[in-house]
């Protein structure tokens, strides 16, 4: 239901209710006052007959100027009806003072005056009095009811005018291109609407950023896929050119390596894409970094073995963090995987997890070539590879690690390894004390 219609109906209903209440109160009050007046009139009439001779009643009553509806009855001391102003059945005798009696299905108000020689009854139909009250109440209610359509129209127009900024925003949104995420105009908006538009614009901006990021990522990804695809194409062409069994075997080996590389890149891209930046952690779970390190070490053992690299778990101490288990696994695995890939044959990679000064720390150290200090800020960029690096890396490993670290409010630092040879990656999380 529209605000306009709701307001219209509510205001009109309020108007009707207050009008009715006012009329009702008026009606009650008028009737009370009328009753008093009528009663007083009845009493005065009775009294005016009381000091007149009994026989004069017939002449006196018409002179009182009462309406047709009034009935006057006079009884003598013997209880005989001496006079009645109206033909028909007499009112039944009643006690002295005011009383209500019913006659022929009609309510009568009766005043009975008892004097030593007679009883005088003056009566009027009750309807006469409430009729007067109702007429007065209606006189108040009718103008109110009559003006309701006018009020309705006025309310409709005022509310419509008040809501115009909303209509204008709606129209502005409707008119824009489907893909447009430009902010809505915020100037000249009433105080009630401005915060909504501000929030909406903030949302649009976040959307625009996310979309922009997504677009850039897609473009980067498409570009980055060209290299492995080119390698595959070259390797495939070499296979079709192969003439000897040896050439065929070599070409197949190269092709297999190319496929592996392409698959790994795609896998990394998917991991990256799933790590929606700025998204709050869905359901933070308690993750033990020491268990994570052992798990990753187990997963990468075959790779390490193939590259004759000693994969060691060192200093495993309870260290727990609150976070996304899948993302943290991607972080640990990428760091360890990178270390193994970039360390020359026969080297060593060391994984550690421990608590230190209120931080839960995950550390990966290798005996590889390390990263020169001037490159350390750039290696976290997506698809950035160290110049001259011969490893078929995706350029995404460290970017993934960084993104996960950022999402967890963790700090990721690169340094020379302990021996001064190789790389040490340290990720410092806010620790969660073991409950």
């Amino acid at each position, binding site marked *: 239901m529209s605000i306009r219609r709701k307001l219209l109906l509510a205001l009109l209903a309020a108007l009707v209710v207050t009008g009715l209440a006012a009329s009702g109160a008026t009606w009650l009050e008028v009737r009370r006052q009328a009753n008093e007046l009528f009663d007083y009139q009845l009493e005065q009439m009775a009294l005016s007959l009381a000091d007149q001779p009994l026989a004069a009643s017939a002449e006196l009553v018409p002179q009182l100027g009462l309406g047709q509806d009034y009935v006057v009855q006079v009884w003598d001391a013997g209880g005989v009806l001496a006079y009645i102003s109206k033909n028909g059945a007499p009112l039944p005798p009643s006690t002295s003072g005011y009383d209500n009696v019913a006659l022929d299905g009609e309510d009568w108000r009766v005043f009975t005056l008892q004097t030593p020689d007679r009883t005088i009854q003056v009566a009027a139909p009750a309807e006469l009095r409430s009729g007067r009250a109702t007429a007065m109440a209606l006189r108040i209610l009718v103008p109110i009811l009559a003006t309701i359509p006018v009020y309705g129209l006025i309310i409709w127009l005022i509310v419509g005018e008040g809501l115009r900024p909303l209509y204008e925003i709606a129209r502005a949104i409707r008119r824009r291109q489907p893909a447009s995420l430009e902010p809505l105009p915020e100037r000249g908006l009433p105080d009630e609407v401005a915060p909504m538009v501000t929030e909406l614009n903030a949302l649009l901006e976040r959307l625009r950023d996310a979309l922009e990021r997504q677009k850039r990522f897609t473009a980067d990804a498409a570009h980055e896929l060209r*290299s492995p*695809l*080119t390698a595959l194409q070259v390797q495939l*062409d070499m296979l079709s050119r192969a003439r000897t069994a040896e050439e065929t075997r070599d070409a197949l080996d190269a092709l297999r390596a*190319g496929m592996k590389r392409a698959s790994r890149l795609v896998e990394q891209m998917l991991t990256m894409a799933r790590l929606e930046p700025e998204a709050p952690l869905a359901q933070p779970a308690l993750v033990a970094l020491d268990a994570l390190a052992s798990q990753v070490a187990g997963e990468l053992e075959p790779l390490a073995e193939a590259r004759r690299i000693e994969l060691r778990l060192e200093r495993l101490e309870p260290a727990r963090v609150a976070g996304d288990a899948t993302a943290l696994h991607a972080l640990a695995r990428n760091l360890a995987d990178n270390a193994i890939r970039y360390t020359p044959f026969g080297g060593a990679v060391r994984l550690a997890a421990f608590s230190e000064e209120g931080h839960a720390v995950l550390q990966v150290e290798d005996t590889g070539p390390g990263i020169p200090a001037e490159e350390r800020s750039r290696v976290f960029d997506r698809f950035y590879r160290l110049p*001259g690096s011969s490893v078929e890396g995706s350029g995404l490993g460290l970017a993934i690690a960084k993104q996960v670290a950022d999402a967890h409010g963790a700090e990721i630092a690169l340094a020379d390894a302990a021996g001064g040879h190789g790389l040490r990656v340290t990720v410092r999380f806010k620790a969660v004390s073991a409950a």
Partner: protein
Amino acid sequence: MRLLLVEDDAMIGTGVRAALRQDGYVVDWVQDGAAAEAALAAEPAFALVLLDLGLPKKDGLALLEGLRRRGKRIPVLIITARDAVADRVRGLDLGADDYLVKPFELDELSARIRALLRRHAGRAEPVIEFGGFRLDPTTRKVSYLGRDVNVSGREFSLLTALLERPGRPLSRAQLEERLYGWGEEIASNSVEVHVHNLRRKLGERAIRTVRGAGYVIDEAPAEACRSAASSS
């Protein structure tokens, strides 16, 4: 024919080098812009450069610009993943002779290299004909005086080098530069051995020794031309 391959991706570099070697070229491969610059400065014998653009140390376009500014006329074939029209236009305008977008097929790469070499030698026709020789770079077939001759890859390259500038002699050192890449073992008399083998297949007069200058292929003797014409 010696080519310089500038490509930072190890897999692509390995594959392309192997393919070009199969085509009979001598291929030197460097993986960054600085190394490419050094190679081009040190080695005058490269017939063509295959240039990737996204290179470490020095970008391919900067390399190309510097090359042309120094007046080097060597054919440059850009091989890159940058496929936007603006990139291609920029590459060609900076002095590239051709532009191939990754991924590409080896056959196309080979054909483009042949076309560039042909145009650079000032020929429009694909087949080299001079002094009774007929060399087809596409099929690597050689005929001399109308007779098909089987030659090895290096022998073919040697003949191509001598026919590049017909009538101008090339020294043994110049021929070695064209026939061997870096790090290849060269026996001290290898050029002589190839010339000797070719003379054995073609006849003593096919390649003439110029004392103190090297080797040259002369315009064929008139009667040899006639016999070639009558035999074909």
